[in-house]
């Protein structure tokens, strides 16, 4: 579904991302973890052709993202709140995105209905612009908008951050169901290891721009990943 080949991104000769080879299969929920500056957002931005790679390329369903714009037809994404149009209401924003994703009005309202539980009555029907929403609710709007128009690839950067605990559980379930029902490939990053370990079917740890672990999900994934990030000092103390 998604191939990354010889990808290097450097700023002023400092390499921030270096992925020689990575293939993500259809239907995979691909989880990305790593400390700040590991290159998670950079990778996502390159996948979405928002920044250019210094070397190498990303091929999405056979399309080189740098060269053609056709990947936009089957890719949904939410990176941060700059993906939202602050002066629209949630309905207007969904309507705008629906138009771009060629969804009819009825399709849109049926689609939005399935997220009633996730929205928790705080998103729709509010006479409020998105810029006045809380961070968590803004995030919900962005995530649901990224799922519009049956995308085959969905890129979500830290979708769990700022969400309240129940919404985090709901989102886990939501992503897993969406992937199973539509065969969608998800690319997700997050700092909460528990969330990412639960939701993803394959986990990758990035460190200083390099892939240091690449594991399919098993029973012990969470412990493995937690062990990786635990400071070494702690072990020496005992």
């Amino acid at each position, binding site marked *: 579904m998604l191939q990354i080949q010889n990808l290097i991104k450097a700023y002023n000769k400092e390499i921030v991302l270096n992925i020689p080879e990575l293939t993500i299969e259809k239907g995979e929920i691909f989880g990305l973890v790593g400390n700040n500056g590991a290159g998670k957002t950079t990778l996502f931005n390159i996948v979405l*052709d928002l920044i250019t790679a210094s070397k190498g390329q990303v091929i999405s369903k056979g399309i080189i993202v740098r060269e053609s*714009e056709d990947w936009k037809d089957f890719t949904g994404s939410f*990176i941060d709140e700059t993906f939202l149009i*602050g002066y629209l209401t949630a309905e207007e924003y969904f309507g*705008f*995105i629906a138009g771009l994703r060629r969804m009819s009005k009825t399709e849109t309202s049926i689609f939005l209905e399935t997220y009633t539980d996730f929205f928790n009555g705080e998103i729709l029907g509010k006479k409020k612009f998105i810029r006045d929403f809380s961070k968590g609710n803004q995030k919900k709007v962005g995530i649901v908008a990224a799922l519009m128009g049956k995308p085959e690839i969905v890129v979500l950067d830290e979708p769990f951050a700022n969400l309240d605990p129940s919404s985090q559980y709901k989102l886990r379930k939501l992503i897993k169901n969406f992937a199973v029902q539509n065969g969608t490939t998800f690319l997700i990053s997050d700092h909460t290891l528990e969330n990412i370990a639960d939701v993803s079917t394959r986990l990758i740890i990035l460190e200083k721009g390099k892939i240091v672990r690449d594991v399919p999900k098993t029973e012990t994934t969470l412990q493995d990943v937690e062990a990786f990030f635990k400071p070494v000092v702690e072990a020496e103390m005992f």
Partner: protein
Amino acid sequence: MNQNLFSLAWRETVRSAYWGKSLATNIALGILALYFSVNFLILGLYVPKILNESFPNADLVSKFNSIVLAYFAIDLIIRQLMQKLPTVSFKPLLLQNIRRRTIANYLLTRSVLNFFNVLPFFLLVPVAINLVSETHTGTATAVWFLSLLILIFSNHLLAIYLKWRFNEAEYGFIILLVALAGLFAINHFGIIDFSGGMGKLLDLILLYPAISIALLLLPVLLYFLNVRFLLSRMFINMLSAKQKEEKIRDYSWLDRLGENGRFIALELKLIWRNKRPRSLAMLSVLFLSYGLLIYRPQHGQQEIPDFLFILGGILLVGMFSVSYGQFFPAWHSNYFSMLMCQRLTMKQFLRSFYMLVTVISVSCYFLTLPYALLYPKIIYTHLAMLLYNLGVNIPIMFWSGMYSKKRLDLSQSSAMNYQGVSATQWLGALPLMLGPISLFYLFKLAFGTIGGYAALGTLGLIGILFHSLIIDFFSKQYRKQKHQLIRNYKNS
């Protein structure tokens, strides 16, 4: 403590991304400041002569004193439009061990350092030396000068207080205008002579300097009014937008226009719901009346020069498209990367902008037609400029938009707002304004006056006929510039 705060303010100014004005903006602002200073200085030097010519045999000093109030009224309006509030971001300070009163005092003290408080000196110093000290003692002149200083300072505090208030209620400014107009009328028709009263007071101060101490009450009072207001608002929930229900207008009728309609609806919402584009749109409406100023025979001349017709055409018909288009596509800078991830073609983006500007320019053309009662030729000069604007100026703005450098903060008023302004805008403005004027004179040499207008119109018509080719061309260019634009908006 105050020293600490001032060093904080200094760093905020120097390091702020908003304030990181381009060199071009700083130069332009510097020239503007210099221009006004020189004007005031010259005016100040000529005041005795002007007064002498207008009111021979009168007491010139008391004449001058009687106009002072009118100056302060105008000053108050201009300050509302142009002066900036001292907005140090006090949010992080609230958590620190600083008294709220200290912060409020500091904000007010800082606000005094303002060009509008310096400007009057250029006028007052020569007047004090040339006019007042001629007929009065040194002490009297000095006290008179100090009294005016106190009044300027009071006006400053009043302006800030009102501006803070108007920040919460936008219609406040209209009320102020109406109130001042009312006072002017009362004064003008001699019901109550406010300006004369103020004049008498200043005359009295010249006779009995001790009275000026009473004047000190004014700034003290205003100062405490400001402090009280600030203290009551210095809470985080007061800082953020008011949590009220918004009146949401329905734009779905535009969906009938299809894909373009959706983007036009977005542009309309952008303009209507954000302070900066909204104030720009209102300014454009105000500019429709600018014709009353320029389409007026200058004294001594029968006919007004051609370039004024061209300038009038650009400003009256194209004010909105020029001032709005100058920042294209930065109006959408806040969510530009989202748009770039969507299945929208650049073409739609450009075309909907083109359609919006066309509709608005054409309406402006019809709205300004009444000026033809003054000069019938306006019917065709404005038409020529309308065509030129749509056919030539818009492509120029598309071109300069490719090099758009800075993100726009939509929530601030547009008057004297240089956030997001870079050399592109200054350089871009030159061909938009000077281009048609110089082209006109070139064509005039070849085809005569009417031929000159016809040539401008023809140029525009060619541009309009080929507009879809032009849009195609630019949509390719914008796609190439995409990463650069995203980077520029992120870094500013």
